[in-house]
């Protein structure tokens, strides 16, 4: 089971890094994409946690549709913070 633990920690650090980058960057497009990446990484974590239904849904809705909506909205309102 050790390989699962290592993989889980790698994914957790990836998700954490993506989340922090999404909050801190000034470029809203990269911020939205980083948020999508965090969501995608979390969906892989759902697979590790034996939740395939949730993983599929999170990958398609959380990462796919949400990110598309964000990117469209940022395109209408301006890309840079401040």
């Amino acid at each position, binding site marked *: 089971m050790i390989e699962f633990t290592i993989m889980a920690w790698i994914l957790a650090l990836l*998700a954490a890094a993506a989340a922090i980058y*999404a*909050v801190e960057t000034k470029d809203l497009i990269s911020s939205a994409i980083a948020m999508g990446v965090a969501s995608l990484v979390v969906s892989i974590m759902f697979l590790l946690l034996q*939740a395939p239904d949730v993983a599929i*849904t999170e990958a398609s809705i959380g990462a796919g549709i949400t990110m598309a909506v964000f990117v469209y*909205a940022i395109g209408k309102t301006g890309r840079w913070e401040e």
Partner: protein
Amino acid sequence: MIWAMYFAVAVLLTAGLYGVITKKNLMKVFISLSIMETGVNLLLITIGYIPGGTAPIENGNFAKYVDPVPQALVLTAIVIGVSVTALALSLLIMYHSKAGTLEYKEGMKW
């Protein structure tokens, strides 16, 4: 493995909360809220996980399953999250076309 998940949950929630508190750009605030939602979903699934359990789909070989209830709840929560985000963004687009900016410095006093 559980601790990796809990760590990720805490970081996602904290990063999102930090963004909501400190950021002035409304788009950023909603990105932060979206990150928090992901964190809560992960928390629920982690609570339902049982070491050594398999996905709750009956296949005859395994006896031990993870808790299916949090998974059902998270399915609901994900869809609610995307709905709220979509409405929020359409509001932001409208607000931007009226106010010309998404930074709240003056007009939005708390």
